[in-house]
């Protein structure tokens, strides 16, 4: 009788190992990014640096003929201290005092980013 009973034999081990436990069917990558800068808002006009400065942003003619003839956009200026401002904003401030508004160090431009 005993040999007729249903006995669960252990499954053949070598074959099981070949079957993958997990299978990746779909993979979605998600990434975040920020600018490699210390601040994202212009501390002078308080507009976001990706937006034009407070003067250009409210100028209905912006893009066509903004404050300077050479710029139809509102470029950003990055200082050697790695703080950035709208070029228009920092230009008016350094006429008062040549210092970075955020850390008070001497202001000099490292880069001008036009978009």
């Amino acid at each position, binding site marked *: 009788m005993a040999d007729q009973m249903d006995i669960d034999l252990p499954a053949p081990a070598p074959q099981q190992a070949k079957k993958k436990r997990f299978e990746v069917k779909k993979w979605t990558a998600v990434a975040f990014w920020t600018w490699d800068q210390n601040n994202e808002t212009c*501390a*002078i*006009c*308080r507009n976001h640096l990706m937006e034009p400065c*407070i*003067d250009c942003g*409210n100028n209905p003619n912006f893009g066509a003929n903004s404050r300077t003839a050479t710029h139809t956009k509102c470029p950003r200026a990055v200082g050697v201290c790695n703080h950035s401002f709208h070029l228009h*904003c920092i230009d*008016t*401030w350094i006429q*008062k005092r040549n*210092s970075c*508004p*955020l850390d*008070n160090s001497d202001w000099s431009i490292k880069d001008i980013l036009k978009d």
Partner: protein
Amino acid sequence: MSSTEKRLLKEYRAVQKELAEKRSSIRDTGIVDLHPLEDGLFRWSAVIKGPDQSPFENALWRLEIDIPTNYPLDPPQIKFVVFGEEKIRQMQRKTGSGTRKVCYKMPHPNVNFKTGEICLDILQQKWSPAWTLQSALVAIVVLLANPEPLSPLNIDMANLLKCDDMTAYRDLVHYYIAKYSAYESNDV
């Protein structure tokens, strides 16, 4: 609308939003009120509370703020609202309809006793356009707890600190708060 007004409008919205919150960080910094007066955005009025663990603790002062036309390139002019003895007596008799009891004298080494003018470097040569009205007020609250007796506008108060007579300093502040506070009328 000038860019100065646009920036002030931004500051106004940010401050009102924070003041409306029940548990807001702006109150923790000692700012009780900050709003422009009715005639536009260039004159503001504020109320600050004396910082904890200082002689000025828990008392209130009103400040008036004048904004220059090219703010934030030039600093705002901020001073304490101070009144003469006569006027304060009058206000005390009237028992104003306001609920806020404000002190109209400011005995502090860096505040002019007669005019309420404040000597604070960031409101003068150290000003930067990154400051706001709100952060400038925080600096004034901090100044109350951290007087600078070496550049005094009120020599008597500065001398008490120079002599390290903290008891006299504290008692004098308490005396002025007790004697020259009045409920403000609603017209401010």
